């Protein structure tokens, strides 16, 4: 007993999805009776680690043991039977079923209930009261508030009396009083010997509740700190992994007149309205942890999503509201995020993929002039140093990076004054990334304005004149050029405004 560590231990765990190595070397020791926080930025491998613990994924290599016994969970259900309960960020409730049924969802066998109805009611009532206050058990779950439904999901895990409780951003939708109650409950459970893994993007929560913190970066566990050693600066430094690296920084330069203006743009009913001005020749970065509103914001700027507030293009002859249709006329181009789903016509040729929004330029007497199309394409192919077999090959024959260049050319061909790029370098090889950066620098020098949403912090530091950081569907911070660093950006991701001096 003594030589085997108790609790849940992950050692050298790796997981690969196709060509992406989501987890390379995951180490984590979750002891009974502790509240252990897992921290990391987008794509650091957090969710993969959690899903391995919860039985959703099986690791490619490495070991997972619970109280010294190897865990080979084949399903979330099997993990649950071992006493590992996971509460995910997504609020999953069956809206038409009662609160009581939702609490016990998945706990029953197909034909047999493990507990009597009366016992079920009293346990559910008890657990719910402790984290969410009084919720009527017979109400349909669909009538509850988001916070109450989140509490319901947590209650669902708690009634199983798990040995290991994983809370994967489960506080994101909780209101403050429910969260405080949850923290009390977490401490009580820990005191009873439950091992709790806590994931949150709020630094205040992390420093309040954690006994220990493990930081993940690029799929590796980089450090584990005891509560006494916790410092927010150190956590951020560990997450970014930077200690003043050399960068090819963009030189600050003077921007021109305002050409795009957002006024009182609201991304969610209760969020703070955003006022935004884009100047000619500027490169503005948008960033934030996944799902904090930056994606919605760039869609609002592009006119492809609607909502409260207005986005107008300022032209010499006046202001014009942007819609899904008039981007061409107003000189605004938008490159969507999902290449396959939102941009590519995979079975169509490279040249046609390029020409689709600008087919009007190739029209001669009502018919398409394919030679004109070829001329226009060749000009762009040369200036973007595009590598392809033949222009009439299907675009699916190209690599991701070259596909992205064709799509960039597609929108540059519309002669935009404002270029909106939604994570343009995702899944693009490093060489092409560099080429895309060079193109963007060149275009902005010629007076084009660029808004670039990126999930890569380094990219924003190198490219942007300023970066807007989104948190909870509002702009949390605007980082000016002279303060741009991976540290300042990641600190803002996690709600820290104080810049880190290195």
């Amino acid at each position: 007993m003594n030589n085997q560590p108790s609790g849940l231990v992950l050692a050298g765990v790796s997981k690969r999805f196709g060509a992406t190595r989501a987890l390379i070397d995951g180490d984590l020791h979750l002891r009974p009776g502790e509240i252990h926080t897992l921290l990391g930025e987008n794509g650091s491998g957090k969710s993969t680690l959690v899903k391995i613990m919860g039985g959703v994924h099986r690791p490619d290599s490495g070991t997972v043991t619970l109280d010294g016994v190897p865990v080979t969970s084949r399903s979330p259900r099997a993990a649950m039977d071992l006493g590992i309960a996971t509460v995910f960020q997504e609020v999953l409730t069956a809206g038409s079923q009662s609160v009581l049924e939702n609490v016990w969802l998945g706990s029953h066998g197909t034909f047999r209930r493990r507990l009597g109805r009366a016992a079920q009611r009293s346990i559910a009532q008890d657990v719910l009261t402790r984290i969410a206050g009084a919720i009527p058990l017979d109400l349909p779950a669909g009538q509850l508030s988001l916070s109450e439904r989140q509490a319901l999901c947590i209650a669902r895990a708690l009634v199983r009396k798990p040995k290991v409780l994983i809370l994967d951003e489960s506080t994101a939708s909780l209101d403050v009083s429910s969260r405080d109650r949850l923290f009390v409950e977490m401490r009580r459970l820990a005191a009873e010997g439950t091992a709790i893994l806590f994931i949150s993007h709020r630094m205040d929560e992390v420093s309040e509740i954690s006994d220990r913190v493990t930081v993940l970066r690029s799929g590796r566990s980089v450090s584990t700190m005891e509560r006494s050693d916790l410092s927010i600066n150190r956590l951020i430094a560990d997450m970014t992994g930077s200690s003043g690296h050399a960068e090819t920084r963009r030189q600050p330069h003077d921007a021109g007149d305002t050409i795009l203006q957002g006024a009182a743009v609201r991304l969610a009913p209760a969020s703070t309205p955003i006022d935004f001005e884009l100047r000619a020749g500027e490169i503005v970065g948008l960033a934030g942890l996944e799902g904090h509103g930056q994606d919605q914001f760039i869609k609002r700027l592009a006119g492809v999503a609607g909502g409260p507030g207005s986005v107008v293009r300022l032209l010499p002859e006046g202001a014009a509201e942007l819609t899904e249709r008039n981007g061409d006329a107003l000189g605004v181009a938008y490159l969507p995020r999902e290449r396959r789903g939102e941009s590519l016509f995979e079975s169509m040729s490279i040249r046609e993929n390029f020409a689709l929004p600008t087919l009007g330029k190739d029209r001669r007497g009502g018919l398409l002039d394919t030679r004109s199309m070829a001329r226009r394409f060749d000009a762009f192919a040369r200036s973007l140093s595009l590598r392809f077999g033949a222009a009439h090959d299907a675009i699916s024959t190209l690599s991701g990076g070259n596909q992205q260049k064709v799509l960039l050319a597609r929108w540059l061909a519309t002669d935009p004054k404002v270029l909106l790029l939604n994570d343009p370098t995702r899944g693009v090889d490093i060489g092409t990334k560099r080429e895309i950066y060079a193109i963007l620098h060149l275009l902005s020098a010629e007076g084009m304005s660029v808004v670039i949403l990126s999930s890569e912090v380094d990219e924003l530091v190198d490219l942007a004149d300023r970066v807007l950081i989104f948190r909870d569907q509002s702009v949390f911070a605007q980082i000016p050029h002279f303060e741009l660093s991976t540290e300042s950006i990641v600190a803002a991701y996690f709600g820290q405004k104080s810049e880190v001096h290195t």
Partner: protein
Amino acid sequence: MTSDTLSPAEASHAPTARQEAWTRFRAWVFEVPALQVLVVLALAAWLVVTIPAIANPRSVTSILVITSLLALAAMGQTLVVILGGLDLAAPGYILFGAFMAANVAGKLAVPAVVAALITVLVCGGIGALIGWICHRFAVQPLVVTLGTGAALTGATLFLADGDYSSAPPQALRSLASLRGTTFGMPFPPIILIVLLCGVGMWIFLNRTAAGRRFHATGVNFRAARLTRIRTSAVWTLVFAASGALAGIAGIFIASYGSGWSQTIGEPYLFSGLAAVLVGGTIFGSIRGSYTRTLLGALTLTLLSTIIVSNGLSEAQSRIIFGIIILAVVSLYGRERHVRDRF
């Protein structure tokens, strides 16, 4: 960033020579309807060898006229299938067209041209409504066209009021009559009309901006919207065209048969769709053209001629049709885009 995340290309294992040959063969099948041409030639040869008497102008004209009717009925369906939908209202449109043609002289007492115009407006209008509804509310065309087609059939039968004895006037009948002539040449005008339609469709699909945008909408609806293609106009116009063309087909079908019945449109739903698919057009794909449908219609007509002249029954011929469609779909019916729709 570590270097091992950067080269997804290396992850894919090298295919064997056999796999590669198969892949290339399939790519080639996608590209040109060569397979369809071969099938048509093979069937024609078989027909001539087994029944030498068929090789006379009269029989050839007959086969071509039947092919033309089928191809005309399948024209709108081709467009809808390229867009990724199905138009199950086709029998309704055809019935309405047939009703109009049969009653030109009787109940309606209007010139044939006016009857054709009314058919185009009614069927086109209904189609436009279907397309708009499917796009606006993101509903499956399957459901909407099925319902609307049934309603249109009912409405037409109501208008007919139990009278199915009337027949199209001679002017219309001569368009599809086996003894008809076109500018003095010994075949009825419908063959030329369908051929011209084929040329027109080819130009539209391949050589106009609208045709390319239409293809793009079928290939990737979401991307088409984000590429500022007016997808609602595309859907509305395509279903309108499908309705109008099926209505016109109904006029010709009634003219050819010199009369009409309550069920005149029904066989054309199945065989029209079969013509599209046997031609090799794929739901929501760049691999779709009317040329393919023409070949598909010819294939089916030759096939049914062979079946009938071998003394097989209607039931047997349907079984063989079904098996052929299954075989065709298993050869090139699978593309991964279907799940991207909506």
